[in-house]
Protein backbone atom coordinates (compact mmCIF):
# COMPACT_ATOMS: atom_id res chain seq x y z
CA UNK A 1 0.00 0.00 0.00
CA UNK A 2 1.17 3.49 -0.79
CA UNK A 3 2.38 5.61 2.06
CA UNK A 4 0.09 8.58 2.76
CA UNK A 5 1.50 11.78 1.33
CA UNK A 6 2.97 14.46 3.54
CA UNK A 7 1.38 17.90 3.48
CA UNK A 8 4.25 19.31 1.43
CA UNK A 9 3.91 16.57 -1.19
CA UNK A 10 0.22 17.14 -1.88
CA UNK A 11 -0.80 18.41 -5.29
CA UNK A 12 -2.01 21.97 -5.25
CA UNK A 13 -5.02 21.36 -7.48
CA UNK A 14 -5.82 23.48 -10.49
CA UNK A 15 -4.61 27.02 -10.08
CA UNK A 16 -5.25 29.56 -12.84
CA UNK A 17 -2.00 31.50 -12.77
CA UNK A 18 -2.35 34.18 -15.44
CA UNK A 19 -4.39 37.35 -15.12
CA UNK A 20 -7.32 37.56 -17.48
CA UNK A 21 -6.06 41.05 -18.36
CA UNK A 22 -3.95 39.20 -20.92
CA UNK A 23 -7.12 37.92 -22.56
CA UNK A 24 -8.44 40.80 -24.64
CA UNK A 25 -12.19 40.63 -25.13
CA UNK A 26 -12.37 43.83 -27.17
CA UNK A 27 -13.05 41.99 -30.42
CA UNK A 28 -16.29 40.41 -29.14
CA UNK A 29 -18.57 43.36 -29.82
CA UNK A 30 -20.02 44.64 -33.07
CA UNK A 31 -20.31 48.20 -31.81
CA UNK A 32 -18.19 50.29 -29.46
CA UNK A 33 -19.18 53.28 -27.33
CA UNK A 34 -17.88 56.77 -28.01
CA UNK A 35 -18.10 59.31 -25.19
CA UNK A 36 -18.81 62.94 -26.07
CA UNK A 37 -16.94 64.80 -23.31
CA UNK A 38 -18.50 68.16 -24.23
CA UNK A 39 -21.89 66.92 -22.89
CA UNK A 40 -20.53 64.69 -20.08
CA UNK A 41 -21.41 65.74 -16.51
CA UNK A 42 -18.75 63.49 -14.87
CA UNK A 43 -21.41 61.46 -13.01
CA UNK A 44 -19.23 58.30 -13.49
CA UNK A 45 -22.36 56.09 -13.69
CA UNK A 46 -21.02 54.42 -16.86
CA UNK A 47 -17.98 53.29 -14.84
CA UNK A 48 -20.25 51.53 -12.33
CA UNK A 49 -22.63 50.06 -14.89
CA UNK A 50 -19.89 48.63 -17.15
CA UNK A 51 -19.82 44.85 -16.52
CA UNK A 52 -16.23 44.63 -17.74
CA UNK A 53 -14.75 47.50 -15.81
CA UNK A 54 -13.61 48.72 -19.23
CA UNK A 55 -14.68 52.31 -18.53
CA UNK A 56 -12.08 54.04 -16.38
CA UNK A 57 -12.32 57.37 -14.62
CA UNK A 58 -9.47 59.71 -15.56
CA UNK A 59 -7.68 62.14 -13.27
CA UNK A 60 -9.80 65.03 -14.59
CA UNK A 61 -13.06 63.19 -13.71
CA UNK A 62 -14.08 62.28 -17.25
CA UNK A 63 -14.51 58.63 -18.19
CA UNK A 64 -12.63 56.80 -20.89
CA UNK A 65 -13.30 53.46 -22.62
CA UNK A 66 -10.62 50.77 -22.79
CA UNK A 67 -11.37 49.25 -26.20
CA UNK A 68 -9.12 46.26 -25.44
CA UNK A 69 -11.82 44.85 -23.17
CA UNK A 70 -15.17 46.47 -24.16
CA UNK A 71 -17.58 43.74 -25.29
CA UNK A 72 -19.98 46.26 -26.81
CA UNK A 73 -23.06 45.48 -24.68
CA UNK A 74 -24.31 49.06 -24.86
CA UNK A 75 -25.39 49.44 -21.22
CA UNK A 76 -23.35 52.66 -20.89
CA UNK A 77 -25.09 54.23 -23.90
CA UNK A 78 -28.59 53.33 -22.75
CA UNK A 79 -28.02 54.35 -19.11
CA UNK A 80 -26.12 57.64 -19.60
CA UNK A 81 -28.37 60.30 -17.99
CA UNK A 82 -27.39 62.99 -20.54
CA UNK A 83 -27.10 60.56 -23.47
CA UNK A 84 -23.54 61.59 -24.34
CA UNK A 85 -22.47 58.03 -25.21
CA UNK A 86 -23.11 56.73 -28.69
CA UNK A 87 -22.63 53.18 -29.96
CA UNK A 88 -20.70 53.16 -33.22
CA UNK A 89 -20.68 50.09 -35.45
CA UNK A 90 -17.26 48.61 -36.10
CA UNK A 91 -16.04 48.54 -39.69
Amino acid at each position, binding site marked *: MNQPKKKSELDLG*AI*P*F*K*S*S*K*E*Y*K*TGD*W*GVAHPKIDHSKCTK*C*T*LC*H*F*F*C*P*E*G*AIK*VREDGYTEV*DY*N*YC*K*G*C*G*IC*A*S*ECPVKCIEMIMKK
Partner: protein
Amino acid sequence: MSELSLKELAKKPDLLCPGARLCAGCDEAIIVRLVLKATRGPTIVTNATGCLEVATSSFPYTAWDVPWIHSAFENTAATASGIEAAIKAMKKRKEGPLSTFEKIDVLAFAGDGGTYDIGFQALSGAIERGHDFTYVLLDNEAYMNTGIQRSGATPFTASTTTSPAGKVISGKMETKKPIDEIIIAHGLPYFATLNAAWPLDVVKKTRKSIEIEGPTFLHAIVPCSRGWRYPAEKTIEISRLAVQTCVFPLYEVNYQNGRPIYKLSSPSLSIAKRPESKRPIEDYLKSQGRFNHLFRPEKNVKLLEQIQESVNLKWEILLDKCGF
Protein backbone atom coordinates in the same frame (compact mmCIF):
# COMPACT_ATOMS: atom_id res chain seq x y z
CA MET B 1 -18.77 57.66 5.64
CA SER B 2 -17.12 59.94 3.12
CA GLU B 3 -15.31 56.96 1.64
CA LEU B 4 -18.58 55.57 0.28
CA SER B 5 -19.44 58.13 -2.37
CA LEU B 6 -19.56 57.34 -6.07
CA LYS B 7 -16.69 59.76 -6.68
CA GLU B 8 -14.38 58.07 -4.18
CA LEU B 9 -15.43 54.54 -5.18
CA ALA B 10 -14.68 55.27 -8.84
CA LYS B 11 -11.03 55.78 -7.87
CA LYS B 12 -10.80 52.37 -6.18
CA PRO B 13 -9.31 49.79 -8.54
CA ASP B 14 -11.53 46.90 -9.62
CA LEU B 15 -10.80 43.60 -7.92
CA LEU B 16 -12.56 41.73 -10.73
CA CYS B 17 -10.26 42.25 -13.73
CA PRO B 18 -11.46 42.81 -17.27
CA GLY B 19 -11.00 39.91 -19.66
CA ALA B 20 -13.45 37.54 -17.98
CA ARG B 21 -15.52 35.51 -20.41
CA LEU B 22 -18.92 36.49 -19.10
CA CYS B 23 -21.50 37.43 -21.75
CA ALA B 24 -21.67 41.04 -22.91
CA GLY B 25 -24.00 42.94 -20.59
CA CYS B 26 -23.84 40.43 -17.73
CA ASP B 27 -25.30 41.85 -14.54
CA GLU B 28 -23.36 39.41 -12.35
CA ALA B 29 -20.13 41.20 -13.18
CA ILE B 30 -21.65 44.57 -12.26
CA ILE B 31 -22.84 43.32 -8.87
CA VAL B 32 -19.53 41.53 -8.12
CA ARG B 33 -17.50 44.62 -9.03
CA LEU B 34 -19.68 46.76 -6.75
CA VAL B 35 -19.54 44.24 -3.89
CA LEU B 36 -15.74 44.03 -4.14
CA LYS B 37 -15.50 47.83 -4.14
CA ALA B 38 -17.13 47.75 -0.70
CA THR B 39 -14.46 45.53 0.88
CA ARG B 40 -12.25 47.07 3.56
CA GLY B 41 -8.91 45.47 2.72
CA PRO B 42 -7.70 41.86 2.59
CA THR B 43 -10.51 39.70 1.24
CA ILE B 44 -10.96 36.00 0.53
CA VAL B 45 -13.65 34.99 -1.93
CA THR B 46 -15.24 31.59 -2.35
CA ASN B 47 -17.43 30.83 -5.30
CA ALA B 48 -19.88 28.06 -6.09
CA THR B 49 -20.03 26.46 -9.51
CA GLY B 50 -21.95 28.64 -11.92
CA CYS B 51 -21.60 31.24 -14.64
CA LEU B 52 -19.38 33.44 -12.51
CA GLU B 53 -16.95 30.66 -11.63
CA VAL B 54 -16.74 29.20 -15.14
CA ALA B 55 -16.31 32.51 -16.92
CA THR B 56 -13.79 34.07 -14.53
CA SER B 57 -11.42 31.12 -14.23
CA SER B 58 -10.94 29.60 -17.68
CA PHE B 59 -7.54 27.96 -17.34
CA PRO B 60 -4.88 29.43 -17.20
CA TYR B 61 -6.54 32.83 -16.75
CA THR B 62 -8.17 34.20 -13.63
CA ALA B 63 -10.13 37.43 -13.42
CA TRP B 64 -9.83 37.70 -9.63
CA ASP B 65 -7.39 40.09 -7.99
CA VAL B 66 -8.24 38.57 -4.59
CA PRO B 67 -7.57 35.08 -3.20
CA TRP B 68 -10.35 32.97 -4.66
CA ILE B 69 -11.45 29.40 -3.96
CA HIS B 70 -13.78 27.48 -6.20
CA SER B 71 -15.92 24.96 -4.36
CA ALA B 72 -18.45 22.48 -5.66
CA PHE B 73 -22.04 23.47 -6.29
CA GLU B 74 -23.32 22.52 -2.86
CA ASN B 75 -20.70 23.74 -0.42
CA THR B 76 -19.87 27.43 -0.88
CA ALA B 77 -21.16 28.26 2.57
CA ALA B 78 -19.21 25.32 4.05
CA THR B 79 -16.02 26.58 2.35
CA ALA B 80 -16.66 30.09 3.67
CA SER B 81 -17.10 28.76 7.20
CA GLY B 82 -13.87 26.76 6.77
CA ILE B 83 -11.99 29.88 5.71
CA GLU B 84 -13.34 31.82 8.67
CA ALA B 85 -12.47 29.00 11.08
CA ALA B 86 -8.94 28.79 9.64
CA ILE B 87 -8.41 32.52 10.13
CA LYS B 88 -9.62 32.24 13.73
CA ALA B 89 -7.40 29.22 14.47
CA MET B 90 -4.29 30.82 12.99
CA LYS B 91 -4.87 34.02 14.95
CA LYS B 92 -5.33 32.07 18.16
CA ARG B 93 -2.09 30.15 17.68
CA LYS B 94 -0.30 33.22 16.30
CA GLU B 95 1.15 31.21 13.44
CA GLY B 96 0.31 30.59 9.81
CA PRO B 97 -0.03 32.93 6.83
CA LEU B 98 -3.36 34.47 7.89
CA SER B 99 -2.41 35.23 11.50
CA THR B 100 -0.79 38.59 10.76
CA PHE B 101 -3.86 40.26 9.26
CA GLU B 102 -5.99 42.33 11.59
CA LYS B 103 -9.23 41.65 9.70
CA ILE B 104 -10.04 39.61 6.63
CA ASP B 105 -13.37 39.88 4.84
CA VAL B 106 -14.80 36.52 3.78
CA LEU B 107 -17.21 36.66 0.86
CA ALA B 108 -19.16 33.79 -0.70
CA PHE B 109 -20.75 34.12 -4.13
CA ALA B 110 -23.30 31.63 -5.39
CA GLY B 111 -26.02 31.58 -7.98
CA ASP B 112 -29.63 30.68 -7.40
CA GLY B 113 -28.99 27.00 -8.18
CA GLY B 114 -26.19 26.92 -5.60
CA THR B 115 -28.40 28.62 -3.01
CA TYR B 116 -32.08 27.75 -3.51
CA ASP B 117 -31.58 24.13 -4.50
CA ILE B 118 -28.20 22.47 -4.22
CA GLY B 119 -26.30 24.53 -1.67
CA PHE B 120 -29.16 25.17 0.70
CA GLN B 121 -28.29 22.77 3.51
CA ALA B 122 -24.67 23.96 3.67
CA LEU B 123 -25.88 27.57 3.82
CA SER B 124 -28.44 26.84 6.49
CA GLY B 125 -25.80 25.06 8.58
CA ALA B 126 -23.23 27.83 8.19
CA ILE B 127 -25.75 30.48 9.28
CA GLU B 128 -26.81 28.37 12.24
CA ARG B 129 -23.17 27.94 13.36
CA GLY B 130 -22.77 31.70 13.21
CA HIS B 131 -19.61 32.01 11.13
CA ASP B 132 -18.55 35.53 10.24
CA PHE B 133 -19.00 35.75 6.47
CA THR B 134 -21.07 37.54 3.85
CA TYR B 135 -23.04 35.41 1.43
CA VAL B 136 -24.03 37.03 -1.86
CA LEU B 137 -26.80 35.30 -3.80
CA LEU B 138 -26.65 36.19 -7.50
CA ASP B 139 -30.23 35.36 -8.47
CA ASN B 140 -30.69 35.02 -12.24
CA GLU B 141 -33.73 32.80 -11.77
CA ALA B 142 -32.56 29.62 -13.59
CA TYR B 143 -29.49 27.45 -14.23
CA MET B 144 -28.10 29.79 -16.90
CA ASN B 145 -24.63 28.27 -17.11
CA THR B 146 -25.82 24.87 -18.30
CA GLY B 147 -28.51 26.16 -20.65
CA ILE B 148 -31.41 27.84 -18.83
CA GLN B 149 -32.96 24.98 -16.86
CA ARG B 150 -35.62 25.80 -14.28
CA SER B 151 -34.53 26.22 -10.65
CA GLY B 152 -36.28 26.90 -7.36
CA ALA B 153 -35.85 30.59 -8.14
CA THR B 154 -37.58 30.59 -11.52
CA PRO B 155 -40.73 32.72 -11.23
CA PHE B 156 -44.27 31.58 -12.05
CA THR B 157 -44.94 31.25 -15.84
CA ALA B 158 -41.32 31.88 -16.92
CA SER B 159 -40.38 29.74 -19.89
CA THR B 160 -37.13 27.79 -19.55
CA THR B 161 -35.69 24.86 -21.51
CA THR B 162 -37.03 22.37 -18.95
CA SER B 163 -40.34 24.17 -18.47
CA PRO B 164 -41.00 25.35 -22.04
CA ALA B 165 -44.17 27.29 -22.68
CA GLY B 166 -46.46 25.56 -25.16
CA LYS B 167 -49.93 24.08 -25.53
CA VAL B 168 -49.79 22.09 -22.28
CA ILE B 169 -48.11 24.45 -19.80
CA SER B 170 -47.42 28.21 -19.77
CA GLY B 171 -43.84 27.98 -18.55
CA LYS B 172 -43.02 27.01 -14.97
CA MET B 173 -46.28 26.40 -13.13
CA GLU B 174 -44.83 26.56 -9.62
CA THR B 175 -44.05 29.76 -7.72
CA LYS B 176 -40.65 31.06 -6.69
CA LYS B 177 -39.28 29.72 -3.42
CA PRO B 178 -39.48 32.44 -0.72
CA ILE B 179 -35.75 32.30 0.07
CA ASP B 180 -35.75 35.72 1.79
CA GLU B 181 -38.25 34.62 4.44
CA ILE B 182 -36.46 31.29 4.91
CA ILE B 183 -33.09 32.99 5.44
CA ILE B 184 -34.52 35.70 7.71
CA ALA B 185 -36.17 32.97 9.81
CA HIS B 186 -32.67 31.73 10.71
CA GLY B 187 -32.34 34.86 12.82
CA LEU B 188 -29.14 36.09 11.20
CA PRO B 189 -27.84 39.55 12.12
CA TYR B 190 -28.29 41.22 8.72
CA PHE B 191 -30.15 40.58 5.48
CA ALA B 192 -30.54 42.88 2.48
CA THR B 193 -31.63 42.81 -1.15
CA LEU B 194 -29.41 44.35 -3.84
CA ASN B 195 -30.08 45.78 -7.27
CA ALA B 196 -27.33 46.96 -9.62
CA ALA B 197 -29.45 49.87 -10.87
CA TRP B 198 -28.67 51.64 -7.56
CA PRO B 199 -24.87 51.22 -7.29
CA LEU B 200 -24.36 53.28 -4.13
CA ASP B 201 -27.12 51.35 -2.36
CA VAL B 202 -25.34 48.08 -3.26
CA VAL B 203 -22.00 49.30 -1.92
CA LYS B 204 -23.46 50.73 1.29
CA LYS B 205 -25.40 47.56 2.10
CA THR B 206 -22.38 45.38 1.36
CA ARG B 207 -20.12 47.47 3.59
CA LYS B 208 -22.68 47.28 6.37
CA SER B 209 -22.93 43.50 6.05
CA ILE B 210 -19.14 43.08 6.06
CA GLU B 211 -18.77 45.23 9.17
CA ILE B 212 -21.41 43.27 11.08
CA GLU B 213 -20.01 40.24 12.90
CA GLY B 214 -21.68 36.94 12.10
CA PRO B 215 -23.31 35.54 9.00
CA THR B 216 -24.94 38.07 6.68
CA PHE B 217 -26.91 37.45 3.52
CA LEU B 218 -27.30 39.65 0.44
CA HIS B 219 -29.85 38.75 -2.21
CA ALA B 220 -29.07 40.36 -5.59
CA ILE B 221 -31.37 40.22 -8.60
CA VAL B 222 -29.29 39.55 -11.70
CA PRO B 223 -31.06 39.85 -15.07
CA CYS B 224 -29.51 37.57 -17.69
CA SER B 225 -29.78 38.64 -21.30
CA ARG B 226 -29.51 35.06 -22.61
CA GLY B 227 -31.90 33.41 -20.20
CA TRP B 228 -34.44 36.20 -19.81
CA ARG B 229 -34.29 36.85 -23.57
CA TYR B 230 -33.73 40.59 -23.93
CA PRO B 231 -31.07 42.68 -25.71
CA ALA B 232 -27.86 43.10 -23.67
CA GLU B 233 -28.10 46.88 -23.28
CA LYS B 234 -31.38 46.61 -21.30
CA THR B 235 -29.80 44.85 -18.30
CA ILE B 236 -29.96 47.83 -15.95
CA GLU B 237 -33.36 48.95 -17.27
CA ILE B 238 -34.93 45.57 -16.45
CA SER B 239 -33.13 45.48 -13.12
CA ARG B 240 -34.72 48.83 -12.31
CA LEU B 241 -38.16 47.67 -13.49
CA ALA B 242 -37.99 44.78 -11.01
CA VAL B 243 -38.00 47.32 -8.19
CA GLN B 244 -40.47 49.76 -9.78
CA THR B 245 -43.03 46.99 -10.30
CA CYS B 246 -42.38 45.66 -6.76
CA VAL B 247 -41.44 42.17 -7.98
CA PHE B 248 -38.14 42.58 -6.17
CA PRO B 249 -38.45 45.23 -3.44
CA LEU B 250 -35.29 46.65 -1.90
CA TYR B 251 -35.16 46.32 1.87
CA GLU B 252 -32.93 45.30 4.75
CA VAL B 253 -33.55 43.34 7.92
CA ASN B 254 -31.77 43.69 11.26
CA TYR B 255 -32.38 41.64 14.34
CA GLN B 256 -32.85 43.69 17.49
CA ASN B 257 -33.70 41.95 20.78
CA GLY B 258 -34.61 38.80 18.89
CA ARG B 259 -37.12 40.62 16.70
CA PRO B 260 -36.59 41.21 12.96
CA ILE B 261 -36.73 44.91 12.08
CA TYR B 262 -37.65 45.46 8.43
CA LYS B 263 -36.61 48.66 6.69
CA LEU B 264 -37.39 49.65 3.10
CA SER B 265 -34.52 51.16 1.10
CA SER B 266 -35.08 54.50 -0.62
CA PRO B 267 -36.16 53.26 -4.11
CA SER B 268 -38.88 51.05 -2.59
CA LEU B 269 -39.65 53.53 0.17
CA SER B 270 -40.65 56.16 -2.38
CA ILE B 271 -43.10 53.66 -3.93
CA ALA B 272 -44.51 52.89 -0.48
CA LYS B 273 -45.05 56.61 0.14
CA ARG B 274 -46.51 57.24 -3.32
CA PRO B 275 -48.38 54.05 -4.29
CA GLU B 276 -49.45 55.61 -7.61
CA SER B 277 -45.81 55.45 -8.78
CA LYS B 278 -45.88 51.65 -8.64
CA ARG B 279 -45.79 50.32 -12.19
CA PRO B 280 -47.96 47.44 -13.46
CA ILE B 281 -46.29 44.04 -13.65
CA GLU B 282 -46.97 43.95 -17.40
CA ASP B 283 -44.18 46.49 -17.98
CA TYR B 284 -41.69 44.07 -16.43
CA LEU B 285 -43.00 40.93 -18.16
CA LYS B 286 -43.35 42.55 -21.59
CA SER B 287 -39.67 43.48 -21.71
CA GLN B 288 -38.53 39.86 -21.43
CA GLY B 289 -38.77 37.12 -24.04
CA ARG B 290 -39.24 34.39 -21.43
CA PHE B 291 -42.76 35.75 -20.80
CA ASN B 292 -43.64 36.20 -24.50
CA HIS B 293 -46.28 33.46 -24.35
CA LEU B 294 -48.34 35.62 -21.99
CA PHE B 295 -48.80 38.23 -24.72
CA ARG B 296 -48.76 36.17 -27.94
CA PRO B 297 -50.80 35.15 -29.89
CA GLU B 298 -53.27 36.90 -27.60
CA LYS B 299 -52.94 38.37 -24.13
CA ASN B 300 -53.45 35.79 -21.39
CA VAL B 301 -55.46 38.10 -19.13
CA LYS B 302 -56.22 35.43 -16.55
CA LEU B 303 -52.59 34.55 -15.88
CA LEU B 304 -51.50 38.21 -15.94
CA GLU B 305 -54.12 39.08 -13.33
CA GLN B 306 -53.02 36.14 -11.22
CA ILE B 307 -49.37 37.31 -11.36
CA GLN B 308 -50.33 40.92 -10.53
CA GLU B 309 -52.39 39.74 -7.56
CA SER B 310 -49.56 37.64 -6.14
CA VAL B 311 -47.10 40.54 -6.55
CA ASN B 312 -49.55 42.91 -4.84
CA LEU B 313 -50.06 40.46 -1.98
CA LYS B 314 -46.32 39.98 -1.38
CA TRP B 315 -45.76 43.75 -1.50
CA GLU B 316 -48.58 44.34 1.00
CA ILE B 317 -47.17 41.71 3.35
CA LEU B 318 -43.76 43.39 3.15
CA LEU B 319 -45.32 46.82 3.78
CA ASP B 320 -47.02 45.40 6.87
CA LYS B 321 -43.69 44.10 8.14
CA CYS B 322 -42.08 47.50 7.53
CA GLY B 323 -44.85 49.21 9.50
CA PHE B 324 -46.82 50.95 6.72
